[in-house]
């Protein structure tokens, strides 16, 4: 790897610059050290990688297509827009890439009980799916508020055999589900594997989740070269914890001519204080095992995040993003609830694709940005999830009864 490469992080202690690390209670330390050891071993194991590739292809349906969004491109009259279609994956989002990797690791570590946290329910569904596939017990922690607004995914998880534990503490959303999952893990250390759904948490999770998701950018590189015979000018992805965006960006970090844009959830607007834009409006702190940008008050108490999208409704962000922000390699912007809904509607009508609310945030940025670029500019956005799960929320927002 080249000197000065962005890809050589984290260091051996899990640090991305000053971010990352392992801020966990002593009881969990031996567990995450063991997990790191096992991951580093299997990462290089031929059989492991073979099984991961085979199931990625046959079970998830990879590679996901790279689609030229002609109508949208013509409508905006600027950059040539492509969608990386990870919403076509089995279970409807990018989340399953990571779940597959982690469950293969869990099986090899002889853990029979899987726990996970979920916000929008996409990670919960993906975890429940791989647990069904491997015959493992699955417990999903989900905020009570999210259970209300993501009913289809709750039903799916039940069908897949998972047990859902409603979390009522704190803001009853993703952050609190993660607290509860960590409490479960510390209580069931012997038999339990915690599948974290985003590139956050104590080392090695941010690295491991990024690695499993980096298949997105790897495929994209081949696909875009076949179609355009060159690299894109810009990549765009939405960010909650940051796993789909890192998956898209990672293989392009050292291609410095490729501009990278991460779109956070601006909620009702940054000024209202009701948002989930930790990078745009937060400051560095420690939560859930890592040092990273957090939405917090001056006394260091974590504030509730807000977003119409349950999957972005988190007051933190993966530590690698914090570092990529400080180094300036990735530009971080945000889109408000209203803008995301607007982009959502345009995408449905123009492209015949019903996006999840999460990538609708990325799309909202694309609408503004692409229009200002010339026609030679190639932009790729990660369509990281499909909108089925959000129909209730959107109908609600539009005051429509379904």
């Amino acid at each position, binding site marked *: 790897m080249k000197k000065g490469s962005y890809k050589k992080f984290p260091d051996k202690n899990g640090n991305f610059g000053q971010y990352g690390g392992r801020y966990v209670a002593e009881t969990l*330390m031996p567990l995450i050290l063991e997990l790191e050891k096992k991951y580093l071993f299997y990462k290089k194991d031929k059989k492991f990688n073979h099984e991961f590739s085979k199931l990625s292809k046959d079970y998830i349906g990879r590679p996901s297509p790279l689609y030229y969004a002609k109508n949208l491109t013509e409508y905006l009259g600027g950059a040539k827009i492509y969608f990386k279609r990870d919403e076509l994956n089995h279970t409807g989002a990018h989340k399953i890439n990571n779940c597959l990797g982690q469950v293969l690791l869990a099986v090899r570590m002889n853990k029979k009980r899987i726990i996970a946290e979920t916000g929008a329910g996409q990670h919960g569904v993906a975890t429940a799916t791989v647990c069904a596939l491997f015959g493992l017990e699955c417990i999903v922690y989900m905020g009570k508020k999210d259970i209300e607004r993501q009913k289809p995914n709750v039903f799916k998880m039940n069908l897949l055999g998972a047990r859902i534990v409603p979390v009522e503490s704190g803001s009853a959303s993703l952050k609190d589900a993660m607290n509860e999952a960590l409490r479960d893990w510390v209580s069931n250390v012997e038999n339990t594997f915690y599948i974290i759904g985003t590139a956050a948490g104590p080392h090695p999770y941010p690295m491991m989740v990024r690695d499993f998701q980096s298949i997105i950018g790897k495929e994209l590189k081949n696909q875009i070269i076949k179609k355009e015979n060159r690299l894109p000018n810009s990549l765009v992805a939405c960010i909650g914890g940051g796993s789909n965006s890192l998956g898209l960006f990672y293989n392009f970090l050292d291609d410095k001519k490729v501009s990278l844009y991460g779109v956070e959830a601006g909620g009702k607007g940054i000024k209202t204080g009701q948002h989930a834009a930790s990078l745009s409006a937060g400051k560095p702190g420690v939560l859930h095992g890592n040092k990273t940008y957090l939405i917090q008050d001056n006394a260091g108490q974590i504030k509730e995040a807000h977003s119409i999208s349950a999957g972005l409704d988190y007051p933190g962000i993966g530590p690698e993003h914090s570092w990529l922000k400080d180094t300036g390699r990735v530009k971080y912007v945000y889109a408000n609830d209203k803008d995301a809904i607007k982009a959502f509607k345009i995408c449905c009508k123009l492209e015949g694709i019903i996006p999840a609310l999460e990538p609708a945030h990325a799309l909202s940025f694309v609408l503004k940005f692409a229009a200002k670029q010339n026609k030679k500019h190639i932009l790729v956005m990660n369509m990281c999830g499909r909108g089925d799960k959000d129909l209730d929320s959107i109908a609600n927002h539009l005051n429509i009864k379904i």
Partner: protein
Amino acid sequence: MNNNRINICFSKLKKENKSAFIAFLTACDPSFSMSLKLLKAMPKVGVDIIEIGMPFSDPMADGPVIQRSYIRALKSGASLIKTLNLVKNFRSTNNITPVVLMGYYNPILQMGLKKFINKAKASGVDGILIVDLPPEVSNELSLELSASKIDMIRLASPTTTLERMHSILKSSSGFIYYVSITGVTGSKINKILSIKKKYMYLKKLINIPFVIGFGINSPKKAHEISRYADGIVVGSDLIKEIEKGIENSSNIFNNVMSLVKKYSKAINK
């Protein structure tokens, strides 16, 4: 050995062949004044060391009782500054009983490590225990602490190996806190006998006092464990009395103190 309050306390108890009774209270639950009143009264009925919880919005190692306690405290306006003021007020009437602050890293980080330690020193804090700061990530704070002579109390748990115990010891002083069970605060202890085995296994390496906490929810269990442990931490069970007091509008102070007396008696039996 430093001639500080923690060391003096344990040396004295050792001479008397007694375990330390360490009582945990959340700062400002339900109010600053009630916390202060309880702090002042507890040493008079046999509490040897006081642990004060620094309220945090996301206490990932705590069970429901302490979670609710932190929420109540934050609602009543708790902050790190107020916690330090509480210790300062307590110190104006008691210069003997050691005080250990227990909590999570983020509020301290936001105050600034240097500022926090200076204020803690000036307020009369003897030790700090930060749940989510294992030795691997505590270099910055350890450097600041060593000059202040405030003890860095660390946790050991049933998952701690002997090898790890060595590295924990290297960066600890005052005492080591053994988490009796794999679980959160206030969990149930199922096998009280197995605690002793693992405690003794680690104890042979430990040259400073080694106390036991988590899940000690009855004076009977406290008595059982006090027969071999250097100290016993009681937290959630005391906090429950505060909760009960709020729910049925009974006298919080009397409720807590009467339970503290029962523990004190059981531990010193």
